[in-house]
């Protein structure tokens, strides 16, 4: 019982541990997926760095992949900034997945350069736990700026980009391809991931149960 309490305390984001320095395990946010965490350096999404999530088609589980981490960050009182999301982040579903909605900021820039500027500001502010962005055009120079901003703000920078940009150079610490899995084994929908780039490791393929995948179990009517 006591051990559990200590464990819960240690998970608290506001707690500063004197023995720990940057570069330790703290610099990653657990993904919430037991099969994914061991594959990632530090055991989660890298804090103070960019993570690129490459996907082809909206609705393949790309957002659900980061949802457990975002929900945990928001409950620790960190801010989640959505810069120019392509659709409406749906409040009832976010709340159902454990997100503290009062910690979410939606930012609606009118122009593309304003969007990149807003991403940089949010990353750099040191207030946001994570910044989500869907940049359409993003050259390596802009990515480099964002990477530096994420380092300065010790923030999770999540960029959702089409998988076509996979061939382009990127300073992101983690590049991961996400999409629905062809096979549906047993219950629920699964998704396949391909880690294209990670610190201290080569590419890897894995498959995991998609967030909200259980909603699709079994055959529908008709």
């Amino acid at each position, binding site marked *: 019982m006591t051990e559990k309490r200590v464990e819960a305390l240690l998970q608290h*984001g506001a707690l*500063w541990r004197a023995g720990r320095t940057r570069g330790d395990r703290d610099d990653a946010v657990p993904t919430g997926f037991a099969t994914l965490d061991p594959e990632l350096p530090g055991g989660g999404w890298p804090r103070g760095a960019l993570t690129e999530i490459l996907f*082809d*088609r*909206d*609705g*393949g*589980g790309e*957002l*659900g992949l980061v949802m457990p981490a975002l929900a945990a960050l928001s409950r620790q*009182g*960190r*801010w989640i900034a959505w810069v120019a*999301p*392509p*659709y*409406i*982040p*749906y*409040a*009832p*579903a*976010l*709340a*159902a*997945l454990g997100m*503290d*909605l*009062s*910690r*979410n*900021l*939606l*930012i*609606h*820039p*009118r122009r593309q350069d*304003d969007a990149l*500027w*807003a991403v940089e*500001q*949010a990353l750099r*502010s*040191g*207030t*946001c736990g994570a910044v989500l962005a869907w940049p359409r055009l993003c050259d390596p120079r802009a990515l480099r700026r964002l990477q530096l901003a994420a380092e300065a*703000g010790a923030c999770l920078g999540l960029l959702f980009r089409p998988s076509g940009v996979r061939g382009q150079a990127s300073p992101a610490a983690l590049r991961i391809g996400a*999409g*629905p*899995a*062809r096979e549906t084994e047993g219950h629920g*929908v699964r998704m396949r991931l391909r880690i294209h780039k990670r610190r201290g490791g080569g590419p890897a393929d894995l498959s995991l149960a998609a967030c*909200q995948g259980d*909603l*699709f*179990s*079994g*055959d*529908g*009517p008709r």
Partner: protein
Amino acid sequence: MLWLCAWLPRLGLDCTARLDEAGAAPAVLTASRGGRERVVLADERARAHGVHPGLSLSAALALCPGLAALPRNERAERATLERLASWAGRFTSRVCLVLPDAMLLEIGASLALFGGLEKLVGGVGQGLEGLGYHALLATAPTPLAAEWLARSGSCRHCPSREALPGAVADLPLDVLVPEGRDRDGLAGMGLRTVGDLLAQPRAGLGRRFGPWLVDALDRAVGVAPDPRPAFEPPARFRAEVELPSESADTTALLFPLRRLLDELSAVLQGRCLVVQSLHLELRQRGEGATNTSLGLRRATADGAYLLGLLRERLERVRPRAPVTGLILESGVLFSAARESGTLFGADGGAGGLETLLDRLRARLGEAAVEGIAPAADHRPERAWCRVAAGQAVTTGGSDGRPLWLLPEPRRLETRSGRPWLDGPLRLSGGGERLEAGWWDGAEVRREYYRALDCAGARLWIYRDLTVEDAQWYLHGLFA
């Protein structure tokens, strides 16, 4: 009591907006006197060419062809002096204006706090230089003696009342009577210095020149009382600057703006005040002005921070005509608990968020940042709402809803009775029937399903039951 007098001999020139200190042309201030435009103040570069006050403008231009002649603006000088008096409130609670170009600070009670006379006088001098004003300082136990010492340029510090007559003795009579008939009369009597005057019998001086002269001497040496009205700092900060040349480009405004904000910041920090709103007016050639207001989430006293916000704002302001001047006015200044740095540098506290929100709103507009919350309605498009960023929300989640909602439901094709989106869609759960809204005119009758497209993407679609043939729509994505 100990009075510090700060005399600003170049106030008229210092309060104009100079764009570049280093490369500036020699400048003079002119005013109309005796029907002719005459020099009233010349800066050092102009003096080096032989230009001095009293010269007519045409003569001055002949001496120095590149001379920049600015008309004297007494209103701006007065306003500047008042801002500086406001700023001086950081050293003492008692500041008095000496129009047109000096101020008095009662510093007797502040000496211990600031670590002695030398440090306090140094602080005032450096502060004024830092804001861009040349000042001559002197201290004396009476306000008038302090003013005389400052105006004479001797910058002396007289510690006690006993030493006063000696300290002012060798000052020229200019400090007392700059010009006119009385001056000639005194000179005719062979009197050259204040000391000469003090040595004369008072009664005779009074009969010859009127009681004012005796009164001034008595006040200077502390024999007669010399009450001065204390300056009351205004509740708002207001500064007005005329540009030396018209400017169509708003980035050229940053230099004068930076000076005004430095002043504002110095006033605020000195008096432990903060500002929460700013109004900037860009005056334009001809009629009209462009106005922009800045409301801050976090009250601040930081001039550099305010400049950053106004810079973002100015990048988006397009004045219709070239700008000739600017007016900066603050909202009501109020006192706040002094800000202090955090132990571990930038943290995730609320202060950081306010800074971020201010910055985002300054560039993107007030409405560009918001929060979201669930709303109590069965219709999916009304089951969420926009709220102020950071507003606490009651969490009412509903399971089985997608993470993305389309702003407008998208009509789907139907092929052989099945919904179609780049291929046939396979229904994979749901069947939730929804009938609501008949009471407010936005009635919906729908049947919601979860569906997979042929690439495996997870969709949230519905069949509209209000039309005869079932029409399918895409409403969300399980992203």
